[in-house]
């Protein structure tokens, strides 16, 4: 290379300084949230940027054990149940649907269904409040867990990831199975789905992360806070007058921690999956 050694070294230090500063700026809100959850509101007002709490006081978690008349554990249980079940349901339904649509795109109605799905995901869904409310009302699902879980089941990235995977399966694989006398059900369950195990894991992870963060449909479909998940409870708490700042930060920590841990454990799969799912769109 024509660049002198010294220049290269200086350039490298500058690159590290820049990337380091940006990363710390991105991580700082998490640190501030965490520290604030352990500090009394008065102490934060006096010194907002203290990097470590004065005392390690966990009493705030006892203080927010009830939020809006509902126990905190219920919001946590709701979050895990609604996110978990909508993920299992969504992955199963999307895998079957995407498989049929990519394997037999020319069957009557299949192209139309795909187009309807693609248009539906473009609709600004925050504007569907009243219609979704009406639909849930007509189906008798208003205020029910079933309504929330069914509404959260489908999503664009999940569909694109499966579609992309099924399109890449060589035709010979299926032809060989047909020659061996396998039925279509056998082809799907014995040949295709075992091959799809890695992409299924990726889709499940991403669906879990995305559905954990959902709040608006849950708020609309719920009749009472009994079916709220953590983000919805956090929003309700944040909207109250005379907000309990320390409590809000503690609840934000609880809302963030499970998905942050899950992401860090599976970061490669999540980042590659999200990039791949987007590229198809």
């Amino acid at each position, binding site marked *: 290379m024509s660049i002198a050694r010294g220049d290269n070294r200086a350039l490298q230090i500058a690159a590290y300084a820049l990337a380091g500063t940006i*990363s710390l700026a991105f991580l700082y*809100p998490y640190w501030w949230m965490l520290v604030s959850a352990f500090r009394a509101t008065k102490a934060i007002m006096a010194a*907002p940027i203290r990097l470590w709490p004065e005392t390690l006081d966990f009493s705030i978690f006892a203080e927010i054990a009830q939020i809006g008349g509902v126990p905190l554990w219920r919001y946590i249980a709701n979050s895990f149940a609604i996110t978990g079940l909508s993920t299992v349901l969504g992955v199963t339904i999307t895998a079957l649907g995407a498989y049929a649509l990519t394997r037999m795109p020319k069957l009557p109605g299949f192209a139309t269904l795909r187009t309807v799905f693609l248009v539906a995901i473009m609709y600004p869904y925050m504007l569907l409040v009243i219609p979704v409310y009406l639909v849930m009302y007509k189906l008798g699902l208003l205020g029910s867990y079933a309504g929330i879980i069914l509404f959260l089941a489908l999503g664009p990235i999940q569909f694109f990831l499966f579609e992309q995977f099924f399109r890449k399966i060589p035709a010979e694989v299926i032809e060989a199975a047909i020659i061996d006398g396998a039925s279509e059900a056998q082809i799907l369950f014995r040949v295709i789905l075992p091959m799809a195990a890695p992409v299924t894991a990726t889709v499940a992870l991403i669906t879990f992360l995305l559905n954990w963060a959902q709040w608006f449909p849950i708020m609309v479909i719920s009749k009472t806070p009994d079916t709220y998940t953590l983000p919805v409870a956090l929003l309700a708490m944040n909207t109250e007058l005379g907000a309990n700042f320390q409590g809000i930060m503690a609840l934000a920590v609880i809302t963030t921690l499970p*998905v942050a841990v899950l992401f860090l454990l599976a970061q490669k799969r999540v980042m590659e999956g999200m990039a791949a799912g987007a590229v198809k769109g």
Partner: protein
Amino acid sequence: MIETLDVVWRHRIFYLFVLPFAVLTILFGLWPILLSIQVSFTASATALRPNPTYVGFANYLVVLSDPAFLASLTKTFLYTALSVVANLAFALGVAVLLDSALLTRGNLFFRLAIFLPVVTPDVAGYVVWRWLFDRSFGAINAMLEMIGAPAFAGLTSARTAMASLLIAELWHHAGFYMIIFLANLSMRDKALEEAAHVDGATAWQRWRYVILPQLKPALIINTVYALIQFLKTFTVVVVMTKGGPNEATNFVSYYAYQLFDQGRYGEATAMATILFAIVILISLTFYRIADREVAA
């Protein structure tokens, strides 16, 4: 007809596979959209009754001649344009930085730090940002004070509220655009750069004429995604500003949502339909332009 039925019957197993997907798409995708469009043609007071009064395009006329809606639309476009440019420029810059040979060690840490907000529930992230900007609790003004810089009004002033939302949203979304650029960068043909280098091209020329043209797929995908994303901006407004101060951040989706709250269903759904049309039109136009560019 008989033939079609025969085809369907012979492939009934595929219809069985697709059935749950089709049911959910129709129940929670198609039906609400059609209901929403239907409501937009009815008088608000009767919209939710079994036999609503149809008023033709009256709601659309009311919306389109409402100066507050037009102001909201202008703000939405301005915010979208600024956000798309800021997010893509930032994400591209960071992606190029992280892709360079200068940062081999610690690269994963940087990627994780910038991507973590993408999977952080947006409500939680924006709640934290709301308080970071606060004048009495917030860390941002405390830091500015420490270095002797003037205070940042943040969410309390109409002049800085939009910038504050943009910063919080960039924190939440930029990591996503970054990984698309990184994926594209890792697929590029590095031999071309070697050749340009041998031919005496400067670092800038190699970047501008060799690398950047190869990033066109990522640029197109990110632009379309970001356009759709920011035209629909909603959660950050609900959490941080409620459209204020002084309507400065009252973007179209939040404005329509407020109309819902006031029971003005007809106008709200007319507004929703207009925004939907704009989102589809802009994305299709952009795809078409991109197609022509690629073909040329």
